[in-house]
């Protein structure tokens, strides 16, 4: 799906075509939901954050600058919603069983199931900003430039934050007898 198509859908939505917005939700819903799930660690919070992100995007669509990618915009809104929830609640919960029921679980091939669970728990134990850096880079595969855009920081800061996040994750996993 190209960005041009995204922009066409945005324009159609602004012209009153609600089905166009549904297409944007279908296109980016899974990505936003997974990101918010990794940040909040809780399916209910992820659902709240994702819904809120899309509604906010719908409300503010007129302010969207078409020179930017729609994905970066909605991703940033979703990330802010998730961080808002996490920082507001300051609590962590175990990931939902649904995460454990992936079939087949790819982590099993590398670290084993238990280690995969420890990896997820270690990510959730990081401070939200570091958690976000790891999720953006290593789980969603965004470039440093995209990370900078979404987090509102420079590329250099994005690299530095990621380095710190990996180091902290490594320390946590070392305590569990794992290497990162």
């Amino acid at each position, binding site marked *: 799906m190209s960005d041009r198509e995204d922009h066409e859908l945005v324009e159609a939505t602004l012209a009153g075509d609600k089905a166009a917005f549904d297409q944007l939700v279908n296109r980016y819903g899974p990505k936003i939901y997974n990101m918010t799930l990794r940040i909040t660690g809780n399916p209910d919070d992820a659902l709240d954050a994702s*819904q809120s992100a899309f509604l906010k995007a719908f409300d503010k669509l007129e302010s969207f600058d078409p020179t930017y990618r729609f994905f970066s915009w909605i991703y940033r809104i979703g990330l802010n919603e998730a961080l808002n929830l996490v920082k507001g609640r300051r609590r962590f919960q175990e990931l939902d069983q649904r995460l454990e029921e992936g079939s087949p679980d790819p982590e099993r091939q590398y670290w084993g199931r238990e280690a995969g669970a420890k990896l997820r728990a270690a990510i959730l134990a990081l401070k939200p900003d570091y958690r976000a850096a790891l999720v953006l880079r290593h789980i969603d595969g965004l470039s440093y430039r995209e990370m900078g855009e979404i987090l509102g920081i420079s590329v250099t800061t994005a690299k530095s934050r990621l380095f710190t996040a990996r180091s902290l994750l490594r320390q946590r996993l070392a305590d569990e007898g794992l290497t990162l």
Partner: protein
Amino acid sequence: MKHEELEQLLWEEAEGVLTAAGRERLARLMDRAVEGAQRRAEIAAASEALSRLPRVEPPAEMYESIQTAVCAREREKERVRDGRRRSPATTALERTWTSIVGAWSVRYTYGLAGVLVGLMVAVVLVPSRSARERSDDAYYLGALTGKAMPASPLTFADGLLELRREGDTILATLAGAGETGALEISFEQPGRRLSLTHRDAEPVEVRFDATSGLPVGVRLASPRGTVFQREFQLNEIPAR
């Protein structure tokens, strides 16, 4: 610094984004790095594990609730627009009466009727409201002192709630969940709701990006009951 650079380059290598210059630099650093090969293998495995954390399908209710909320939002906006456009409807009885006694007489009659109804409602409701206030925990923690909200901060028990605004964003500073217990603050607009629980004694700032032109419902609750609940327009909240 060398260690940091080596780690960075190894991660970029594992992710397949290493440039030609980076590759050369990595080769030089690896020649001098003790256990460099082991670290390379560890990072490759870790990068693979991170990138393969399982993806989860969002629940179907996510799409449904977004669609429902978007529709509700559209309807509410239309209703607000229509409400501004339409002039008050005139009934057949009003038209007949107006033709007999003139428009101002009708207005005075409606005004007088309104005052009488208001007095009757006040006589009936005021005692029961007082009785409820005395017994309801909802009022115990500070709802009565919240009459100045959102212009002034609300103080209750050992806590405080202050609302400020930056554009369409409401910034709520909430403090005092210590003795009070966990506090739940929620914001609501048609089709949207944000609810957060604050459990620490430390103050927390909560942001709610509101839609302009629509009323905002704010509710603060503790385990003992509602502390504050009111609906107001965005422009009633003082700007930061």
